[in-house]
């Protein structure tokens, strides 16, 4: 049980049980002082057992930096925060020096700092599915993630590199996957026609509200499902990019399809079984 609890945020199997929509963990990172410093702002909204753990200092915000060229990792814990009763949110800020001439990859989460047992109640921020359930949360468990790869929000931009080829016919997409891409690299390359690229660049809404927004989100989901169907046939996954592998396993679970069904497996159909992904960060600078 505790394994499932700590594997993601929201963490539970699709349609099985989940955090309430009112529970949201977001992180913003802003460079300042001539790009020599990073301001990391963690925000946890809503009532949840995680908020209670933070308030009682049994959990803390953690941000990890990864400087790719030197393979250097740095960790910064923050247990100092402000609580806004009006907004029902906990906000913590960290100002951290950038030690290299390039910005690091940023990997924030919330960790429990000592062994805890949680009995789910109305204030736990979980759906009724887990009512009265008892969880053991070991010390140092990551109870909340906000990676660049934020699976449940659909932001998979850290896996994808999208390029436009004006020579492509309207509506066409070509996907290349480099399963063995290095840490920090984007293993999936999408090359698409101008019209597809333009669609992908547009702002995505959390929920599709018409055929076009649904299509926009579904494009990426279909691509991912085809990539993972291909990867599922690899004989050895030992050297596969860890982020890709982790996400692949999660997509397998979410679709509820039999991915090992060889030629009978239909990746496009599987893509219809999950909430579509979209690229949230495609339109940001330097992507």
């Amino acid at each position, binding site marked *: 049980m505790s394994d499932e609890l700590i594997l993601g945020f929201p963490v539970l199997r699709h349609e099985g049980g989940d955090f309430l929509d009112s529970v949201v963990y977001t992180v913003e990172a802003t460079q300042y002082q001539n790009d020599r410093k990073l301001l990391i702002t963690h925000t946890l909204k809503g009532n949840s057992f995680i908020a209670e753990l933070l308030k009682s200092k049994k959990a803390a915000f*953690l941000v990890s930096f990864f400087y790719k060229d030197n393979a250097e990792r740095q*960790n910064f814990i923050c247990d100092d925060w402000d609580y806004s009763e009006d907004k029902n949110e906990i906000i913590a800020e960290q100002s951290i020096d950038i030690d290299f001439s390039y910005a690091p990859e940023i990997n924030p*989460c919330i960790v429990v700092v000592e062994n805890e047992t949680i009995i789910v109640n109305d204030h736990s921020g979980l759906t009724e599915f887990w009512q009265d359930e008892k969880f053991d949360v070991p010390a140092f468990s990551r109870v909340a993630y906000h990676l660049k790869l934020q699976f449940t929000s659909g932001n998979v931009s850290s896996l994808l590199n999208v390029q436009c080829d004006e020579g492509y016919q309207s509506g066409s997409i070509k996907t290349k996957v480099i399963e063995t891409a290095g840490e920090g690299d984007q293993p999936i390359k999408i090359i698409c026609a101008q019209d597809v690229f333009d669609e992908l660049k547009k702002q995505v809404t959390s929920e599709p509200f018409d055929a076009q927004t649904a299509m926009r989100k579904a494009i990426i989901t279909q691509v991912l499902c085809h990539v993972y169907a291909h990867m599922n046939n690899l004989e050895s996954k030992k050297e596969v990019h860890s982020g890709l592998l982790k996400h692949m396993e999660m997509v397998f679970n979410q679709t509820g399809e039999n991915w090992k069904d060889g030629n009978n497996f239909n990746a496009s159909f599987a893509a219809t079984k999950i909430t579509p992904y979209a690229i949230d960060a495609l339109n940001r600078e330097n992507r």
Partner: protein
Amino acid sequence: MTLYKEIDNGIWSEFGKALLSSKGSKMQVDFLQSCRDGKDVFLQYLNGNLFNEENAIIAGKGIFLNHKFTEAEFRFPPTDTQQIIWDAFKEVPRQNTGSCGFWGSIIVDMIKHDCITPNYLASNVNGVNETGFYMLDRAITSEDGLIIDECVRRILRSMGNPGPRGKRIIFNDFYLGKAYWRWNWSNKMSNKIDLSFEEILNTLDDKGYAEFSGKMHTKKSYISQTNTFGGLLLFLSKNPDTLVKSVGRIIDNLTYLSIWKAIEIQSPESNEIEIENIARSL
């Protein structure tokens, strides 16, 4: 921030790639011959084929490694030479000591100042008498493109050029870089865990460092975090045989564990226990 002199990394990389584009080519043989013919000819070759590019050198503070190496010492620096290397570069920011262009510039300056001769770069002194001159003569007179290419690759690696194996070359394959980084880790970790600098340096002997470095600079950089690495070193200092047998699998398991558990903020001593449990279960 102080800028240090280095070769532009893009130009440096292209220089290596061009040399490796065709095995046994005239270009490769010419390069080897210039290396065989000594300092002046080799520097002339570099001037004509590398430094002729505009902005090939990024100006900055120069570091002079004022030590005349023997060939074997350059290939396998003993502890006292490692100390000399460390002393020369310990104040340089890690971004520079992680840069191929920085080390390339150092090597060229060492040749200019007679600290090494170009033939050292081809050396494979490794228990057998495969000196730089021997390796160069063997390659230059060979009709086997693979032998010629292999010698070119060795020289490029000895110069910290990323052409043969990418930019991570300077952490392990490049002799000076390897000595510097091993010393750097031992120094850093001796302030974090209850092991002396010498004990850590011994654990990170040639084989151990190669194992760690390979992991740290590929896909398992997770272990480069000081609390995680500290746990590993504590474990290995008590169980040295494990290093040879199964440290690779232990590191793999640590990486999986890190997905859900923030072992990077757990103390090295707690991580040592964690690693013991992993090792027992293998």
